[in-house]
C-alpha cells in the first residue's frame, strides 16, 4: 500500500530524526493504518507528548496536539470527553508514557476511555540524549546508568492490563506491516488500547550498548520477537530472551466517553 502523503506535512520534511531512527518507520505504519481504516482526515486527531517520537505529531497532516512531557493522555482525555466523535491517536515515547506520564497511562486504562496509545519504545530517553527509562532493560547502559541500570523495567502491557486496559498489543519497527495491522486493530477497539512499538534509537541507545547501527538493531528486534500465537506452543527455555508480539489481550468493557455521554443525554434530554 502506498503511503498516503496527504496525511503527511511534506513541507516539514525532512524530519529532525537521526538517520536510521525508528520513529519514521512507526509513523509511516500509523499513517497506513489510518488510511486503511478509512477515517475521514478531519475526524482524526494526533496527540503527543514531548520526546523525539512525539515530534511525529508535527509531521502528520491532521489536527495535531503536541502537549507537555508525560501529559498527552490527560490532554487527550479532555478532548475526547468534549468531542467523543473524534478518533484520537496518542503518540508517546517510553519515558513520556511510563515515567512522567505513568499516572495518566494507568488512569486512562482504568477509565477505559477510547484513546489509541502508540508507545514508541526505544528503551531510552532519546530527546535528552540517552538517559535510562522505565522500559530500559536491567543491565543496559545509559548516560545516567553508566554501569548499566540496576532498576527493573516495566512490562508495559502487563502494567496496562493491571490498570484495566482492554486492548494491548506489541509490534516493532522491524515488522512494519504487522505494526500497521496492530494499530488498525487498536483503532477499531472501543476502549483504551495500547500498542507498544519497539523502535531502534541507534544514536542514544544502540551506540552506547554496542547494538550496532539501525540495520543491526532492526534485525535483532526481528529475531528476538515471537508472535503470541507461536509462543503458546513454545516452551519456557525457547522463550528466554524473546519478546512477545501481536495482540496480547483484548477485552470487552464499557467505554468511558460514550457511557458518559449516554448518561448526560439521559439526564439532559
Amino acid at each position, binding site marked *: 500500500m502506498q503511503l498516503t502523503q496527504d496525511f503527511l506535512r511534506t513541507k516539514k520534511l525532512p524530519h*529532525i*530524526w537521526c538517520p536510521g531512527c525508528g520513529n519514521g518507520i512507526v509513523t509511516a505504519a500509523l499513517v497506513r493504518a489510518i488510511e486503511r481504516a478509512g477515517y475521514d482526515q478531519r475526524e482524526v486527531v494526533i496527540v503527543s507528548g514531548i520526546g523525539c517520537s512525539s515530534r511525529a505529531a508535527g509531521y502528520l497532516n491532521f489536527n495535531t496536539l503536541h502537549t507537555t512531557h508525560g501529559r498527552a493522555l490527560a490532554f487527550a482525555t479532555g478532548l475526547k470527553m468534549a468531542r467523543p466523535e473524534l478518533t484520537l491517536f496518542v503518540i508517546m515515547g517510553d519515558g513520556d508514557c511510563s515515567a512522567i506520564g505513568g499516572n495518566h497511562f494507568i488512569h486512562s486504562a482504568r477509565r477505559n476511555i477510547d484513546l489509541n496509545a502508540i508507545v514508541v519504545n526505544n528503551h531510552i530517553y532519546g*530527546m535528552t540524549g540517552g538517559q535510562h527509562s522505565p522500559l530500559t532493560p536491567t543491565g543496559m547502559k545509559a548516560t545516567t546508568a553508566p554501569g548499566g541500570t540496576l532498576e527493573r523495567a516495566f512490562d508495559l502491557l502487563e502494567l496496562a492490563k493491571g490498570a484495566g486496559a482492554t486492548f494491548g498489543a506489541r509490534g516493532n519497527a522491524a515488522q512494519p506491516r504487522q505494526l500497521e495491522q496492530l494499530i488498525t486493530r487498536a483503532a477499531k477497539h472501543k476502549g483504551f488500547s495500547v500498542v507498544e512499538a519497539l523502535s531502534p534509537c541507534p544514536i542514544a541507545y544502540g551506540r552506547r550498548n554496542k547494538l550496532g547501527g539501525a540495520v543491526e538493531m532492526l534485525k535483532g528486534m526481528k529475531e528476538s520477537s515471537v508472535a503470541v500465537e507461536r509462543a503458546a506452543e513454545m516452551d519456557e527455555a525457547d522463550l528466554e530472551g524473546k519478546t512477545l508480539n501481536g495482540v496480547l489481550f483484548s477485552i470487552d468493557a464499557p467505554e468511558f466517553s460514550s457511557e458518559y455521554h449516554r448518561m448526560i443525554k439521559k439526564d439532559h434530554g
Partner: protein
Amino acid sequence: MAKRQEILLTGAGGQGLILASIVLAAAAVNDNKNVVQTQSYGPEARGGASMSGVIIDVDTIEYPKVTRPTVLLCMNQASYNKYLPKVEPGCVIITDSTFVSGPFKEELQIKSLPITRMAKEILKREVVANMLALGVINAATGLVDRNIFRESVYNMAPKGSGELNQEAFDLGYRLYEEGPEQLCRDAAQTSR
C-alpha cells in the same frame, strides 16, 4: 598569540565538531591561556547543523560567544553557506573539500583541504576527521603549542584511541603543510 582568537567549528551533527572544540579548548588551557568554549545545542544538532565556538585570549574572557571569528572551519556545505557571509577579511577559513565545493571568494583567506577524505583514505577512520581538522587549524594558526595540543588530543580521546587521534592530528599538520597529493603519495608507498 596576543590578540583574542575566536574560532568557529561548523559542520554537520555527527562530525565530532563539539568534541573537537572541547579538545581545542582543553589544549589551550594546558597551554596556560584563558579559554571559553560554547556550542549550539538542540534537536537541530541531531543530524542537522553543528556549531561550536572557542575563544582563546590572554586576557579574561567576558562575553563568551564568538562574534567576529578569527578562524572558521566548515566541514559541510550548509555550514559554509551559513557562516561564510559572517566573517570579516583576515579570518582564517578552512573548509573540508570532501563536502564543500565553494564558491571560494578570492578576497578571503580560504584553505580548502580534503579533511574527511584523508581521514578515510589514509587512516581508514572517517571518525577522526575532527582531530585531523584540529591539526590543520593549528598548523595554520599556531593557536596552541603543538606538543601540548598533541598531548591533549591523546588524553581526551576515547579509551584506546589516543594514538589514532594523535596520528590524525599530525596528519592534519602534514595536510596543511604538504598538501593532499603528497600525503596520498606517501600513503601509497607505505601500503605497498
